[in-house]
């Protein structure tokens, strides 16, 4: 038993290493769509001098969508009584990329069957507990922040078919339709998402027209909810107005109250130029 565990682990580490290689290798060739290390897209000339995307030379993010549907697939079968808009309009999603092709998004679609083969270990009981496994993919699997300790892996992952997620009834949910899973708990946001208020769509604005929908995991990492919203590098500031050498005045916030507020600002500036606070910050505002 111990031996087999070790075998599993070493094999898994190997797989993860290969995966990591591809993820990093791919990062330069493509630009990220919304978040760094989440979904990405390669720039392709779709027709004469027209590109599917244009990317930022500063941040490496997509700056402009020429072809909003590049690399997408139909969102698929949505149950009529729950799902709303994309019944009446062609909705597409970007599929979770196959491991075989060597590409991956941030979560790394990583079919269990790839390592485990057909012998995916079936848990002895459905009781939630901490599992000392898969820490390569889910760093904090021992202390899963998501749900603040109230849920565990098989709350979301299908116990029997690990290449799928699971519904309340144990039905299969595709990794391309994570909203069905997340909507189990986050109902309010799910409703907003269906109405197009939460989340993101690109394509054609009109009702009934084709849109690409971003699904939950294209922006949020369900394993690592803190920070739910990883800080990213902003695009460069506008040029200063003519006649101005700097923008110090807008950071000074000199007031007329007679307080030595100016000194406070000089000492520990809460200014725009200081971004170190931001790097490991949870941006609550962006989360939900």
């Amino acid at each position, binding site marked *: 038993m111990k031996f087999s565990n070790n075998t599993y682990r070493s094999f898994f580490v190997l797989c993860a290493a290969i995966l990591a290689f591809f993820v990093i290798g791919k990062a330069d060739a493509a630009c990220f769509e*919304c978040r760094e290390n989440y979904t990405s897209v390669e720039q392709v000339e779709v027709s004469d*001098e*027209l590109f599917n995307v244009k990317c*930022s030379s500063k*941040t490496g*993010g997509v*700056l*402009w*969508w020429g072809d*909003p549907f590049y690399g997408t697939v139909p969102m698929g079968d949505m149950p009529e009584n729950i799902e709303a*808009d994309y019944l009446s309009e062609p909705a597409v999603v970007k599929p979770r990329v196959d491991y075989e092709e060597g590409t991956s998004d941030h979560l790394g679609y990583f079919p269990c069957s790839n390592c485990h083969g057909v012998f995916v270990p079936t848990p002895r009981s459905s009781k939630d507990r901490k599992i000392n496994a898969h820490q390569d993919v889910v760093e904090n699997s021992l202390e899963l922040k998501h749900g603040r300790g109230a849920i565990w892996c098989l709350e979301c992952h299908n116990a029997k078919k690990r290449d799928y997620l699971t519904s309340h009834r144990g039905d299969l949910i595709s990794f391309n339709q994570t909203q069905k899973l997340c909507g189990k708990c986050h109902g309010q946001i799910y409703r*907003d998402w269906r*109405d*197009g*208020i*939460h989340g*993101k*769509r*690109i*394509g*054609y*604005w*009109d*009702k009934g*027209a084709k849109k690409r929908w*971003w699904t939950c995991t294209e*922006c949020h990492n369900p394993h690592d909810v803190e920070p739910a*919203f990883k*800080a*990213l*590098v*902003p*695009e*460069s*500031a*506008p*040029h200063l107005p003519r006649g101005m050498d700097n*923008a110090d005045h*807008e*950071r000074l*916030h000199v*007031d*007329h*109250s*007679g*307080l030595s507020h100016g000194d406070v600002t000089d000492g520990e500036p*809460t*200014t*725009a*130029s*200081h*971004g*170190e*606070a*931001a*790097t490991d*910050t949870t*941006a609550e*505002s*962006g989360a939900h």
Partner: protein
Amino acid sequence: MKTDEKKENKENLEKEENSCCAPDNGRRDFLKTAGVTTAAALTGAGALLSGSDEAEAKFHWAEWFQKNYRLMTDEEKEAAVTRLEKRYSEEYDKNVTVDRTEAKDGVLFGYALNIQKCIGCRRCVKACVTENNQSRENTQIEWIRVIRMEKGEFSQEFMDQGSPQISGKHGIQSGGHRHKQAGVVLEGQHYYEPEKVPEKDAFYFPMQCMQCENPPCVKVCPVRTTYRDPDGIVVIDYNWCIGCRMCIGACPYWARRFNWGEPNLPKEEMNPKTHYMGNRPRMKGVVEKCTFCVQRTRKGRYTACVEVCPVGARKFGNLLDPNSEVRKILDKKRVFRLKAELETYPKFFYFMD
């Protein structure tokens, strides 16, 4: 040139006349001088206009003489657009199309921005520039401005400070935390440049043209070059603008920009899919602003800023369609309009979850 030569000849003739017959009185003298001066001036003007280099020669007189776009007949519009396509294609070495799709019936464009979600990454700003062919530098034009607003610092330190300084018997009349700028739009920072956004102590407030239903800029325009189209977009006929900048003065949202010099738009960055009212390259001395990407939205596409927003804070749609994203937001969320007290009735709404 022929007319110029004629004028010169005439001038010479008059000179000869002057030299042979000495003037005997002030009035005739004056008349002659006036004649000569006029001729010389006309010759000079002619030379200036005709004797110009290749780039200048591309300048189409027909374009200069064209009418206010709205008053053109369909044929004239077509001619204007074709003329522009030709000029742009030559200038930018690519096949530039100038669309002139009119507003559709039953469509009133609206926009909603989730101020709670915005992380201040400015990708909308750059997307807009990529899409809309703004001048890249000297002077740089960006239609969207994102303002960083501080969350404010409130501390024990200021509690018994203020004015008058130490309270004494009569109490403080204005407290030590006055002038703390949390939530004050006018005290925001425009040129923030942190390593990463969002920052812990700030939130962000993007602004652009609000496409007002009661636009102050339209009212003040002396030549009606800017006007509200039926689908609610306030557009500008760049070929009709006289550059008086009244509209810049009148806009409470600082949405309008001026082409101070000849715009700097690199050929390779030029977006060849343009609209007459939208992102076609501008000329110096005219005003421009956000048009809700009229070249895209009138063809059904989302605006460039909506598509690029990494947090999905930007929403766009048809205000007349009860199922549109914008209408759903108006139904479900608390919205506000910026500077609502000015009664400009923007069709650009801010909301929070």
